[in-house]
């Protein structure tokens, strides 16, 4: 067993860290306060090749592995949760399904610009009445004269206003047991009848673009179907498994940011005539935070390693996502506590991290759903 990262992985992490420190971090507060999507940042990330890390060069990617990608998500998320979420969603949800399930033509048309970072990808699964229960999807796509006619509504879809390619899930029929067949279809945002807006005022990840999609008799060619028509559900479950690793990495990144600030602050802040880091109550908090971050990071790396080696990783991705997201909320909360009244103020950036990281317990499968996934893997 070898816990050492490869030279390439270390270089990817160093590159992402430098870029995150110099470009992303200074913009983080504004991105949050103004709820301003950092378009420029994404264009620069595209030029560096960050948007295409896990895709081959033939498709405009960088030819890296999942571990390298998680290292980049961690560093970007550490600097700015909003940027981290849009990054993870663009790669894991927007581009990855096209790489896994797209035809050669679809990869040429859609994956290459995504991997090069010329545009962002979005993946629309959630509906007002179908969140955790994705099987309850109500959006429909009816095949007529070689075209799908799509009707329905999607909510909280990340990046859709900045995407040239939006994948939506829709019911396309029923199987022999009378259950809905759910398929994934690529829809261009400028299609007639397709309305994309961002009407939400969010608690955290405020600079990440979160959209409502309304599809009113939207027509796309039958060739826009992504992957196997009958296996849409399985496909997006697999997509979400991969996405969970990146959300876990994002949570680790945010937690590391909060921990580093807490450690530093504990040495600077003096009360009762001494650094607060000399109080055991503070030391124990810091010890727990550091330990949990390391554990979560190891789980993320293991899940990513399994994925890179084409081994099953559903359970490990759920472990990583569940533990890392809950750990990050605890860590940000404790960091805020260590900062006392200052932590409650915006300028310290800790309250933002706490607000941002809460999403990690909800998006791409809530904590409850992760426990459900794990229990199923255990044979329950």
């Amino acid at each position: 067993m070898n816990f050492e990262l490869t030279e390439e992985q270390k270089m990817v992490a160093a590159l992402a860290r430098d870029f995150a420190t110099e470009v992303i971090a200074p913009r983080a507060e504004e991105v949050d306060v103004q709820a301003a999507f950092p378009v420029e940042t994404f264009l620069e990330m595209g030029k560096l090749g960050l948007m295409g890390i896990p895709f081959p060069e033939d498709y405009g990617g960088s030819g890296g592995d999942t571990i390298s990608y998680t290292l980049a998500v961690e560093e970007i998320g550490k600097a700015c949760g909003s940027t981290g979420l849009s990054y993870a969603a663009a790669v894991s949800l927007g581009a990855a399904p096209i790489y896994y399930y797209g035809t050669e033509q679809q990869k040429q048309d859609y994956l290459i610009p995504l991997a090069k970072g010329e545009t962002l990808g979005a993946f629309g699964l959630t509906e007002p009445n179908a969140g955790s229960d994705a099987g309850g999807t109500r959006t429909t796509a009816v095949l007529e004269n070689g075209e799908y006619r799509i009707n329905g509504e999607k909510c909280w879809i990340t990046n859709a206003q900045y995407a040239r390619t939006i994948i939506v899930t829709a019911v396309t029929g029923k199987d022999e047991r009378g259950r809905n067949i759910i398929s994934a279809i690529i829809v261009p945002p400028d299609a007639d009848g397709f309305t994309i807006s961002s009407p939400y005022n969010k608690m955290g990840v405020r600079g990440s673009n979160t959209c409502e999609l309304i599809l009113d008799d939207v027509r796309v060619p039958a060739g826009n179907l992504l992957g196997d028509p009958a296996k849409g559900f399985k496909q997006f479950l697999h997509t979400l498994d991969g996405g969970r690793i990146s959300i876990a990495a994002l949570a680790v990144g945010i937690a590391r940011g909060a921990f580093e600030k807490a450690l530093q602050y504990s040495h600077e802040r003096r009360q009762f005539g001494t650094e607060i880091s000399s109080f055991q109550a503070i030391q124990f908090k810091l010890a727990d935070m550091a330990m949990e971050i390391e554990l979560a990071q190891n789980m993320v790396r293991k899940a990513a390693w399994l994925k890179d080696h084409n081994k099953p990783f559903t359970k490990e991705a759920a472990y990583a996502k569940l533990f890392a997201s809950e750990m990050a909320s605890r860590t940000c909360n404790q960091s805020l506590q260590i900062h006392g009244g200052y932590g409650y103020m915006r300028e310290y950036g800790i309250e933002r991290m706490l607000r941002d990281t809460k999403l990690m317990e909800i998006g791409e499968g809530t904590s409850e759903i992760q426990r459900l996934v794990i229990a199923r893997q255990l044979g329950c």
Partner: protein
Amino acid sequence: MNIFVLMKRTFDTEEKIIIENGRIDEEGAEFIVNPYDEYALEEAIVLKEAHGGEITVVTVGEEEAEKELRTALAMGADKAVLLNMEDMDEAIDHYTIGEVLTAYFKDQEADIILGGNVAVDDGAGQVASRLAEGLQMNQVTTITKLDIEGTKVTIERDVEGDVEIVETSLPLLVTCQQGLNDPRYPSLPGIMKAKKKPLETIDFDDLDLDEEEIAAKTTTTDRFLPPEKGAGKILEGSTESQAQQLVELLKSEAKVI
């Protein structure tokens, strides 16, 4: 254009450095490409983009330096050469490195060699100049602007804050100063490609060098960190009285005037 870059692996002077018994604790130190050499590499890439050619990055060091060479390859160098000193029994200083580089470059046909102005670890600024002397090649140090047309070269160099304009010709060695350019990040595809690019290791004794002849001319007797900065002094009163006090202190306490 046949472009060469001299690169040094150094510890990061912005990170914590621990010195024990006159030696730097390498376990605890962070190692990087010498920042001034990044200007050299960036300029090399700019030259290649404008004039075509090939970039070879050269370092004198030990196996660990492969990591920094890979970084240079990821930024855009085409080939890397490690002049390996592992088998050297004698002490090494700037003279030694200059001799090893000179021996290597005697067999190369360089149009231009770019180095950093100084290395941030010892700040000597000697190696590149020694190489130019060894090769009897034109050299211009601390450059902040470089234009090449044919074999004619126009350079702006930093002279204690002033600018000097120099005209010279290829082949040429220059050392690069802050302000010359903004080094790029290595790109992700660059990082992935770096491991496939050639990295050649040449043992110094394969360069027909005699260990004793190139042994260090200097000895390092001690190393120590600069003294901790003491608490500052804030002067009070009117501007005029503050200036008075300052002059007094510079005379009596700092004894600099």
